[in-house]
């Protein structure tokens, strides 16, 4: 019999501190589904997804039952559709999104990611068609998630794509205006996007990945916060050590679940994404961890340093607990999905500018940020450019998931529902970036010497 206190600790982590496995994501390659006939390509895609993922939800539920730990999401990521669809002559890829949506519904997963294009160095024919299809694709489907990679450390930043995506985000918001412009919550613009991210909305199955793999995304901000409550006032060495130990424990459970899912589905294990992913529920917030470290409110001076330490300690603890680590791995800061961040924004403590600084040291970017519906497309493009620059220069992944909520302005809130939460409308800089964005072209890749 295991140590009595260890058993109680595990049970408390799950019952009281909301420890869960955030997602089991099956990555499926669609490279063999290309066809010159779009209809036939879509039939191949539907058949492949519904065959490989037919038991995904059932296996996830069986593991929940066996270990008594919730597995919140079962999801699918696929090869970026722009690569698959451009073999055909279709001039619109909305039908591909509808096929993904139908396949997701048939197997019972709540999101499918990969309505994506990788355009960091330039557009192919299919990339352009896919990006133009995004607003309608996200408006007519329920479960499809989209992402576009616009920059990388090796390629620089595609400023044509940055310009176009500002407009695409505005169009997506307009087409889903009856539902708080929620289409934009399913669209991420990345720099240095990773091939094996299991988290939505930015998941896709990279072309260097195997035929079919299982990735697991862990969670557990509540567990880290409770662990830190026991070391109040102690130096940062102790704080970092406590976070590492906690991350280790959380990740070990993720590895257990990943091994089991991989074995039961007969699909190789891919990676564990070591992420602290918050939810809008009280006690499941990354912001509250930062406050537990000693900040009065998330967003005040010191937040960037606290987040940097948290992010690093989570990785250090998690790496040893897992055989393969990947994905985004770190602390997420999605504003509308984090109860503490929502509160901090409402108090005026947390602004877009501070969030931008935070994204320099954490695993993602400006995530689930609701802004006024009348924000110009060029301002949104400029926000994307700033984030992409942070990612490209610092050799890390950054992303922007921003929602210009039609009809809402400062002081309002957008209610996205479920895990997407509630987004207080945040202030954007009122001065224009129009001429900057109108230039287009490509920002060259950065030099990797003379680092200062």
């Amino acid at each position, binding site marked *: *019999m*295991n*140590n*009595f206190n*260890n*058993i*109680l*600790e*595990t*049970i408390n982590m799950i*019952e009281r501190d909301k420890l869960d496995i955030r997602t089991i994501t099956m990555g499926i390659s669609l490279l063999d589904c290309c066809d010159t006939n779009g209809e036939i390509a879509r039939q191949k895609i539907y058949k492949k997804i519904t065959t490989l993922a037919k038991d995904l939800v059932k296996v996830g539920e069986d593991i929940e*039952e*066996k*270990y*008594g*730990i919730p597995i919140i999401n079962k999801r699918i990521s696929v090869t970026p559709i722009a690569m698959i669809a451009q073999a055909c002559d279709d001039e619109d890829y909305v039908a591909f999104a509808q096929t993904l949506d139908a396949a997701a519904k048939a197997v019972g997963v709540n999101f499918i990611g990969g309505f994506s294009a990788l355009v960091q160095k330039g557009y192919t024919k299919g990339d352009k068609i896919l990006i133009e299809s995004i607003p309608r694709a996200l408006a007519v489907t329920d479960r499809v998630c989209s992402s576009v990679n616009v920059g990388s450390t090796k390629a620089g930043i595609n400023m044509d794509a940055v310009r176009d995506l500002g407009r695409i985000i505005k169009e997506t918001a307009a087409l889903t205006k009856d539902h708080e412009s929620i289409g934009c919550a399913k669209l991420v613009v990345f720099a240095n996007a990773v091939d094996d991210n299991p988290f939505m909305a930015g998941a896709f199955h990279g072309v260097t990945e195997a035929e079919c793999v299982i990735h697991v995304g862990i969670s557990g901000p509540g567990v880290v916060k409770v662990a830190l409550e026991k070391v109040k006032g102690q130096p940062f060495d102790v704080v970092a050590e406590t976070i590492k130990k906690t991350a280790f*424990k959380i990740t*070990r*459970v993720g*590895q*257990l679940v990943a091994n089991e899912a991989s074995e039961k589905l007969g699909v190789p294990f891919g990676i564990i994404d070591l992420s602290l992913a918050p939810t809008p529920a009280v006690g499941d917030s990354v912001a509250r961890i930062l406050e537990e470290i000693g900040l009065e409110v998330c967003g005040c001076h010191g937040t960037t340093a606290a987040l940097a330490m948290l992010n690093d300690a989570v990785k250090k603890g998690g790496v040893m607990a897992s055989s393969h680590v990947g994905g985004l791995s770190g602390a997420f800061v999605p504003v509308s999905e984090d109860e503490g961040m929502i509160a901090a924004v409402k108090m005026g403590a947390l602004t877009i500018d501070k969030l931008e600084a935070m994204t320099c040291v954490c695993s993602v970017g400006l995530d689930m940020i609701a802004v006024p519906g009348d924000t110009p497309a060029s301002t949104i493009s400029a926000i994307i450019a700033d984030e992409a620059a942070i990612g490209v220069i610092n050799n890390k992944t950054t992303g922007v998931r921003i929602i210009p909520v039609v009809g809402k302005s400062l002081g309002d809130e957008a209610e996205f529902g479920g895990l997407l939460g509630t987004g207080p409308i945040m202030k954007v800089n009122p001065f224009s970036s129009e001429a900057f964005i109108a230039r287009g072209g490509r920002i060259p890749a950065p030099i990797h010497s003379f680092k200062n």
Partner: protein
Amino acid sequence: MNAYVSVMGMDKKGIIKAVATVLSDNGVNILDINQTIVRGCFTMVMFVDLSDLTTDLAGLKANLAIPADAMNLRIKVQHDAIFSAMHTV
């Protein structure tokens, strides 16, 4: 398969009897028991062998839910691997 049955709630007479009866009725062998009461709060962890289980895991949990509801307890059944994974390197 070995598992842990954890029982938590306010202390009262007959908890162990009620839980052990359900386990016995479902073919579960109890290998070890650890139990404590802190400020009236009853906590028990049983290490059990499920190899002769006469129902499935969901069925056992449903049967344990009957005394849990009647006596206002929280009863969980979890495979032992989750505890070993978390607490041993």
